[in-house]
């Protein structure tokens, strides 16, 4: 959902390296009318809305999932492609004009390694080297890409510094529109919202190149596509978000936005059962309660890696695949957050697998 946009430190990036996160944060809060605004009236239309919406300031396609190798080892993976409009160079005829930036993040969680490995890439769109095309999910950044093929199958290929993967993600269910028909509110104000749909229960097949070996993998994944021009409330500190592919074929998405003063600023959840019935939950029906914390040896931040999540009258327990799924890219992009594969239990029964994202635990959101 909101992903990791806002919690990053916005201090001067003394390194010359550009901080995409800072860019995105400033974008999220900018009240710039040059960008298209979300409206509850809008009806999502496919295949058009699979593709990019360059009039909106930010957009992302976000895939998380669990993989299993042929020798039954479990791996978590995450790949995200962002598109952001800079708002600059609107009249610039140069083909290098950075009107749109494409950013990609990829991570692999391997229990055998005991931690998460990660890589990222940023480029301006142009020259056919980096783009987010309209009309269909077709995002590319050099040799990293995510493409939705005509049969609805997604293919993605990532060549990170320490790993690579090439996965095909086959939908097994219909698209899940989040919020009110794809209009997903993120705060008390009506314009604090995004367009948001998910593709849960994707069947994954593919290859992972990791630790010098090429592994055949299969598994399940979840795709989110979301776009907007401004989302977050200024009082927000961070958020907790989880998506789960349940074993019975149903799916669950829950998030809460935490206030700087502590407590819940806004929350929301969507559940779709195996038969396709969708239930939406309001802010007051959602509750996150930490069960076990983990203190990061890298950043000293304390994350509630084990959570109890209550949605309506149902309760789930989230247990991480491994504790150290903190993504610490402060040396380059200054991004620090926890994003990891979790197993979902209900009454000690393992009922599904998902991904949990915890942001805003290192430094409070700073503007």
């Amino acid at each position: 959902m909101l992903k990791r946009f806002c919690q990053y430190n916005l201090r001067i990036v003394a390194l010359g390296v550009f901080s995409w996160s800072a860019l995105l944060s400033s974008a999220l809060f900018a009240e710039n009318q040059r960008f298209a605004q979300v409206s509850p009236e809008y009806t999502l239309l496919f295949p058009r809305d699979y593709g990019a919406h360059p009039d909106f300031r930010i957009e992302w396609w976000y895939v998380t999932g669990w993989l299993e190798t042929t020798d039954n080892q479990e791996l978590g993976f995450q790949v995200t492609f962002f598109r952001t409009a800079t708002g600059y160079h609107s009249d610039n005829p140069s083909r290098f004009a950075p009107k749109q930036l494409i950013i990609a993040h990829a991570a692999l969680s391997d229990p055998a390694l005991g931690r998460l490995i990660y890589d990222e890439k940023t480029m301006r769109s142009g020259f056919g080297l980096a783009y987010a095309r309209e009309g269909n999910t077709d995002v590319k950044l050099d040799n990293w890409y995510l493409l939705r093929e005509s049969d609805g199958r997604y293919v993605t290929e990532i060549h990170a510094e320490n790993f690579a993967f090439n996965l095909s993600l086959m939908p097994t269910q219909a698209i899940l529109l989040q919020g009110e028909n794809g209009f997903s509110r993120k705060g008390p104000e009506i314009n604090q919202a995004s367009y948001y749909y998910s593709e849960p229960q994707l069947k994954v097949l593919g290859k992972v190149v990791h630790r010098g070996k090429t592994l055949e993998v299969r598994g399940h994944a979840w795709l989110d596509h979301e776009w907007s021009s401004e989302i977050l409330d200024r009082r927000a500190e961070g958020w907790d978000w989880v998506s789960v592919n349940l074993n019975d074929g149903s799916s669950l998405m829950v998030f809460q936005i935490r206030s700087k003063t502590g407590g819940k600023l806004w929350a929301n959840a969507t559940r779709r059962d195996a038969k396709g019935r969708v239930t939406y939950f309001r802010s007051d029906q959602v509750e996150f309660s930490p069960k076990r914390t983990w203190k990061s040896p890298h950043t000293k931040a304390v994350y509630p890696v084990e959570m109890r999540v209550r949605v309506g009258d149902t309760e789930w327990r989230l247990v991480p695949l491994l504790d150290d799924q903190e993504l610490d890219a402060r040396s380059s992009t200054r991004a620090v957050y926890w994003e990891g594969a979790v197993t979902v239990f209900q009454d000690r029964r393992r009922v599904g697998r998902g991904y949990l994202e915890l942001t805003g635990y290192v430094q409070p959101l700073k503007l």
Partner: protein
Amino acid sequence: MKVLALSCWLLVGEWRARFMQISVVIMAIALGVALGFAIHLVIDAAFNEFSAASKNLSGQSDFQVYGKQRYFDESVYPELAKYEGVDLANPVLEFTVSVPAEYRGEGDHPLKILGIDMFRAADMSLDLLGISVDDQQMDGLSDDAIFLSPAAMEWLRVKPGDMLQLNVGTQPLVLRIAGGVTRARVGQRVAVMDIGAAQWRFNYLGVLSRVDLKLGVGIHRAAFKEKLEQDLGEYFYVAEIADQETRVASMSRAYRVNLNMLSLVALFTGSFLVFSTQALSITRRQGQFALLRVLGFTQQQLLRQIIIEGIALGVIGSLVGLLLGYGLAELVIQLFDGDLGSSFFPSIQPSLHFDLYAGLFYFVIGLSVTVFGSMLPARSMLRMNPTEGLKSGNVNRAIERISMPWLAVICLIIAIFLVQLPSIDELPVFGYLAIALLLIGGIGLMPYLVAKFFTFVLCSITGIFGYERLHTTTMMALVRLANIPGQASIALSGVLVSFSLMVAMAIMVLSFRISVSDWLEHVLPADFYVRAADSGVAGGFERDEQKAINELSEFLRVDFLRYQQLVLDPERPEITLIARHVDMSDVRKTLPIVGEIIASDQWSGNERPVWVSEAMVDLYGYTVGKQIMIPLGGALYPFVVAGIWRDYGRQFGAIQIQLSDYQQLSDDWSVNTAALWMQSNITVNDANTALQQLTFGNTLEIMQSKAIRDNSLKIFDRSFAVTYLLEMIAVVIGLLGVAASFSAQMLARTSEFGMLRHIGVTRSQILVLLTTESCLLTVLGVVLGFVLGWSISLILIFIINPQSFHWTMQLYMPWGWLMLIAGIMLVSASVTALIAGRSAISGNAVRAVREDW
């Protein structure tokens, strides 16, 4: 142990007795070493800083792709990014803009701007990236922001947040200074901005200046390079960082080597001083040595003693020299930024590092020069029978043995042979060797020449006047010089070396200066030169502006010039392409042609002429009549070399073509400069006003050709300031040598003067005798020095300059200056002789003579 004690005792005794002379020798060595070391340190520091700054600009890549013209079409960038084996392609647009006139200064240095894609550049570990201030991270991508290095901010007197006013062609452009630049070198003036913004704002749409490539793991570099070169075609170069380093090094190499050579001259002069002082000292101590031999000292022990003396002198002199040199280098860098007035290393602030190896090198040179200077006279001396040495009057026999006219002649012959040889690796190695041999040969021949000359003078004078009518003192002086030429020539060697070097440099510099001045007259025939800032790839004047200038009634004639930079060899600096109208019926009038040209009537219709500078002949092997390919507007076109012209302005080469050919082939109708000839009834002020009143008048840079000429000559003089300084120091060392050897001689001749006084010669007569002697000697030294210096100047002008800098010049003689220096030499030599003589004859005549018995 006893021998050592004796050795120390002898050493200390000798030094105590000749404190002044020893000090002079040490000073000469120290000065020579100091100069050499200081110059080396300064230019090394400047060069290193310059290379580091260039490396900063080029980043760290496996390969760089660039075109034969400075800018090429950007469409090659995506091809390269997707090319097999390429991990990362980083597009760069590098260009310069001229800054507002008030910051421009004499050197006319423009501001270098790097247009970069920060995401690519950061992955390529490019050193220069913008640093935003005030949380404005977006500035790195902003379309109106520019980042300046600290030195550039200081230079343009701006700070972050200020606006920077520049010109693009005849249009003004204002950019916001958004912050600083990472890892800019101290003193490096450079700006960074987004590549898309740069292309747009500075009118470079659609072009790049290079693409840096980083290869994937395990890619075979050589094979990759070969394939890429083939696929890109001959318009592109694929270069490695090492090539870039070669290119940077080759820009200043000739200058650095020549300056180092020049600095060694001082040391060389110093070595003659050591030689003459030590020779005289040994002569004077002949009795002492003979006594030591009789007492049981072996030849070897004596030689060792003299060598120890030499080593002691050399060590002290060289150490003092190194310290002095370091201090001097520090001072020069503080005061002049290490540029030494040459403009080879513009706008950098080098920092000095104590270069241990260079220090050792100069120390060893200083030491060996001293030891050699001590050993040479000692060896011949010691071959004598000690009993002979005990007798007085044998002083001169020893020196005579040093004189080896045949060896000197061989040196001269080899020198003549060497000047015929070409340069090695573009350095005039043989030229410098020839100069050294000329000096050695000249000095070796001195005793012989002195004897022959004065015998001849004596014979002819006595033949004409008879002994009776000749003045006694003149007579005595001549007889002495004719018969004891050894001592005389030793005294002269210092004068000879320093004077000849000075003559050589003076002739060379004057010839150069007059040639440059004539050349400036020739290449700047118009009254006004008007320039506009570049408008991206295009020159500043488009057709509208050209029309407006053409329509000015104040001017009789207007010529337009188009300048471009080309790369014809990736290992060499860029050359300049000048497109202008050349009158085919009278090419020599437009261009300073040297040698043959292909006249217009020999020209077939479809051939296009180019005229190339002398450097193109040396560096690229162009000859008249040769067909060459020139990159224009993204393609290569054939041209024929129609003539060769002299160019002092662009050492790395320049090519002139017809403006009409250029425009037809490149479809580029813009120009950079307009040359304007005033109507005869118009004043300079009116012309100036007319230009300023053009609609784009306030963006123009208007220069009168006289001002350009004066400015060029000023820069010329400044770049030779170091040369003058080195020359002066060589002269001072030479004069010190004269003083030292004269005073040594006077002391040695104390008994001779005593004897003279016993036979009735008065003190004043002796002084006259001494002055006459030294005058006659100096005159001969000056004449010989002139001949030698003139020969050396010919080598400098006709061998070393063309081989180093690829330009020729005419010979001009600075007679007035030469006369002045000759006069100074003559007077100072005579005065020194007089002063030394006075102290020598001040003692009691009887006591002076008694020494002999």
